[in-house]
């Protein structure tokens, strides 16, 4: 395979990489005054990258000695995470400029993180997988600590970095074990090996557990979730919004691909691990969220819980399960961006407020915002006919068909517990004594974003059929032998 056809396959990634460096150059020469322009440039780059992804080769193409793969699954997930990143960038712009986070590096770091994620999604080798993860993580560590002058942001970045380094170590150790016992790092090679050999050696199995743990850290699944609440709370809110969406989608896609492609033959072994972390995530995500008073921390536990639900689909280990995961991630993206847009509107006297209690009486002081947030909360709680209901529906159906009854029942029960804290926010907004109103003037960007996400969340069922068929096509790739 020659270099020209390889480059054709990686065209979107190449574009993003070059664009990122161009933006860096631009920023370096023009200085801080160009920050706003670079934000829009970043959004533009993400949009163009999305177009390139969609315009890429159809079917499955490999590149660079099968290190890199582009297939329907990768395309689907890349589109999702590009949308997520673009929305998060738009969300971040007014906030960052207003709060004095006006370094032009922010959008560039986001672009590089997105590049890493795209590589993760397309990884077809343990080595390219690791490269993607590290590129993404290093960008994110910096972004988390972007607000150098505040203690909490720096602390969040540092915690994330230390724990992320630990998880990278675990991941690498697992990879080396797998390589040592299997003799290859290529996904297809591993798949062939395990398919032929019914008894996997202990070394491979331990390596698999380590890899799973490393990836579980990235999707913040219990017990590797501990960084999540602290980082979510400490990082600036738009960063949190980005964290909650794009990296989660990329890491989950990677998790799915690693488990099903190279280790697909060992499904009976890893299913138990996924089963356990899924169960633990759902339980912790719902129970620990109840006592939270900070809405960003609450969202952290909420995302842990959501990842638990998504992992139910993976535990099913079936095509139906992966379809469910992709549908879930799609709606999860819009619900979260919408919710964080609402959270960004929580300003009083020019300062951000993050207490749930400060939402009291929002229905009277700002009925539109309260209505939108209430809608997102209902959707997250899984109330039909909102999007969140369908997300849960598909993963639980997959679990039932895979006879994972315990998981399905616990999932439903934790949904009930989860409904409590989502509904509590609605109760605070609608039934509590009105507090001081928030600052007026949300800014055009937030208004537009909230409107768009409200529409998507509410009328998701109308667009369900195309999303579902796309997800089914994407899922089918992973099971094509």
């Amino acid at each position, binding site marked *: 395979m020659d270099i020209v056809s390889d480059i054709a396959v990686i065209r979107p990634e190449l574009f993003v990489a070059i664009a990122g460096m161009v933006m860096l150059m631009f920023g370096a020469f023009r200085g801080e005054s160009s920050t706003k322009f670079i934000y829009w440039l970043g959004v533009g780059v993400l949009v163009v990258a999305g177009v390139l992804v969609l315009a890429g080769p159809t079917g499955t193409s490999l590149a660079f000695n099968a290190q890199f793969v582009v297939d329907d699954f990768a395309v689907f997930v890349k589109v999702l995470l590009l949308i997520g990143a673009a929305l998060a960038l738009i969300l971040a712009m007014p906030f960052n400029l207003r709060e004095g986070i006006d370094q032009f590096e922010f959008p560039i770091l986001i672009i590089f993180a997105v590049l890493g994620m795209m590589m993760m999604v397309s990884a077809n080798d343990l080595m390219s997988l690791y490269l993607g993860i590290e590129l993404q993580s290093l960008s994110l560590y910096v972004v988390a600590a972007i607000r150098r002058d505040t203690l909490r942001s720096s602390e969040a970045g540092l915690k994330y970095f230390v724990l992320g380094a*630990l998880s990278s170590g675990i991941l690498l150790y697992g990879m080396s074990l797998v390589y040592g016992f299997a003799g290859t790092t290529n996904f297809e090679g591993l798949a062939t090996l395990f398919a032929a050999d019914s008894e996997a050696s202990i070394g491979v199995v331990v390596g698999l557990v380590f890899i799973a743990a490393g990836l579980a850290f990235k999707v913040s699944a219990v017990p590797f979730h501990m960084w999540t609440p602290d980082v979510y709370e400490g990082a600036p809110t738009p960063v949190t919004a980005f964290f909650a969406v794009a990296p989660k989608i990329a890491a989950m896609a990677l998790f799915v691909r690693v488990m099903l492609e190279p280790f697909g033959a060992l499904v009976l*072994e890893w299913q*138990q691990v996924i089963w356990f972390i899924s169960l633990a995530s759902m339980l912790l995500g719902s*129970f620990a969220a109840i*006592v939270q008073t900070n809405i960003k921390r609450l969202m952290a536990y909420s995302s842990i819980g959501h990842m638990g639900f998504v992992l139910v689909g993976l535990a099913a280990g079936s095509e139906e399960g992966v379809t469910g995961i992709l549908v879930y991630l799609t709606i999860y993206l819009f619900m979260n961006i919408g919710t964080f847009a609402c959270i960004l509107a929580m300003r009083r006297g020019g300062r951000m407020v993050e207490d749930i209690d400060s939402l009291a009486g929002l229905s009277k002081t700002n009925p539109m915002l309260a209505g939108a947030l209430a809608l997102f909360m209902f959707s997250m709680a899984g109330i039909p006919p909102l999007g969140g209901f369908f997300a849960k529906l598909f993963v639980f159906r997959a679990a039932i068909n895979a006879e994972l009854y315990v998981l399905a029942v616990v999932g439903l029960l934790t949904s009930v517990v989860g409904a409590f804290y989502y509904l509590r926010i609605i109760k605070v907004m609608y039934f509590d004594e009105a507090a001081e109103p928030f600052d007026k003037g949300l800014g055009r960007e937030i208004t537009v974003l909230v409107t768009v996400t409200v529409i998507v969340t509410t009328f998701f069922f109308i667009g369900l059929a195309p999303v579902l068929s796309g997800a089914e096509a994407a899922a089918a790739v992973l099971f094509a032998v």
Partner: protein
Amino acid sequence: MIELAIFLPLIGGVIAGVFGTRMGDRASQLVTTVPMLIAATLSCYLLWDVGLQGNERTIQLFTWIDSGALELNWALRFDTLTAVMVFVVNVVSSMVHVYSIGYMSHDAHKPRFMAYLSLFTFFMLSLVTADNFVQMFFGWEGVGLMSYLLIGFWHDRPSANAAAIKAFVVNRVGDFGFMLGILGVFFVFGTLDFDAVFKAVPDVAGQSFEFLGMDVDILTTICLLLFIGAMGKSAQIGLHTWLPDAMEGPTPVSALIHAATMVTAGVFMVARLSPMFEFAPIALSVVVLIGGTTAFFAATIGLTQHDIKRVIAYSTCSQLGYMFFALGVGAYPAAIFHLMTHAFFKALLFLGAGSVIHGMDDEQDMRKMGGLFSKMKVTAVLMWIGSLALAGVPFFAGFYSKDMILESAFAAHTGLGMYAFWAGIAAALMTAFYSWRLLFLTFHGRTRADDHTFDHAHESPPVMIAPLLVLALGAVFSGYLAKEYFVGHDMNEFWGGSILMLHNIIEEAHHVPFWVKKLPILVGVIGIFAAFVMYILKPNWPAAFVARIRPVHTFVYNKWFFDELYDRVFVRPSFVLGRGLWKSGDGAVIDGVGPDGIAAATRNLAGRASRLQSGFVYHYAFAMLIGLVLLATWFLFGFFR
């Protein structure tokens, strides 16, 4: 066309109910009263067409329920029995509507009242036109509901609310029996259509089923269950306690619902089901026993009450007893005859009493009346007419119907028949006595009202007097005009197939000894004379007499202690049981273990879960590594399973 007689009240009631507050008082009075008057005219035509011309018919409206073996049509069954009932209901109801315009003139919620009245009328009409048990039950429950709403119409009075609830709950007991009866009918006959059931009754008669080791007659059981429903609605002894309390409602309600129409639903039901009861002689005996006892028992209480409306209420209860023992001895036509005449004169008495109350600033205690004749002559004369009819004085309406009932009871020649006959005679004596006690205490003698009230006592406006005149015409002439059709020579042609009598007791009743025919008149005259002596000639005798028989009087005055007995036996134990189930059952066990317990456990767990989040990086790293080790271990052990 004739359907309008049924549906006009519904239309008027719905319009007044929904738009009443926007239309205003006058418009909602018109929109209910005018359709009622039209419906009343139509029902006069209906009675002529069906009863006299013999044009019985059933109008199928639509299929109501079609589920498996159960198929029910909504149909209007117009036979003579129904036509008589529709006539009585519509005429009395239209008069009450007119009367209410005057009586409720000071009330703030006229549209609601008028809407209730019209809706009640509709439910009563659907009860009497029913072609099957379920449709009858629909009307039955509907009138119960409207009765509840109307008794509690003045819902700012606690006593009215209590009375409304009492009426509803006591009726529930009866309705439960009725419902079981309906289920029994469906179980045994496989259908709920009257015609189909009636046709199959002779085959079922005599069959029995085993219950607790006893052979029980099927038909008797069903009839007794249905009769329990009738007892509740018609306030027969045991389930009568709600009726006197129901007088808390406005007086037009008492006249319409608790005298003329709804309380007679039980009588109508037994008459309608005569093809079933005729084959269940034991059930009929029970009906005689209950009816006779009620007639006597309620009359005794009527002797002692001081509230003008309560006297009439117990009188109603007593007269319903007459109707029931007439049914029990098989004299269904006599019962329906009395139902009709009673509807006229009892509605007249109630509305007359209402006129007195209205003129006396809502005073109901007869001890604070007296000498009102000069103040309200028309009302007084009309009340006299009503009382004459009630007491069975010759040539007034009650004379024909009541005598017919007593003669039928005598003609039955059974032990129970004789019991009912003598109970009826005793009741007739007391009826005459308390009726004139009421008249003398209210209209004659020296007044006991305070000067202010007495000076302001006034005759009611024409809008209230006019309906009384119409009802008075009924109270005077309905007996004489209708007797040949209801219980005379034209009886068989008149009733057609609507009532089944296995042997014609009415015929035998015409041939009882002379003294049986004259005894009721004699005791009536004695009663009137006794009242004259006690309350006009020697006004201090009643007190002295009461002092002589203090224990008996106390017993009777307190309504034979039925309320106290029920309070001890049913109400308080229910409260104790309910409180126990609530506090310890629901509160402690279900809430404690269920919602509250789970909530507390959840909160506890949530606190623990969030305490894991210490904020120290090394704790987090430790948790990750421990998690990793645990997973690996589990994995390896699972692997080497």
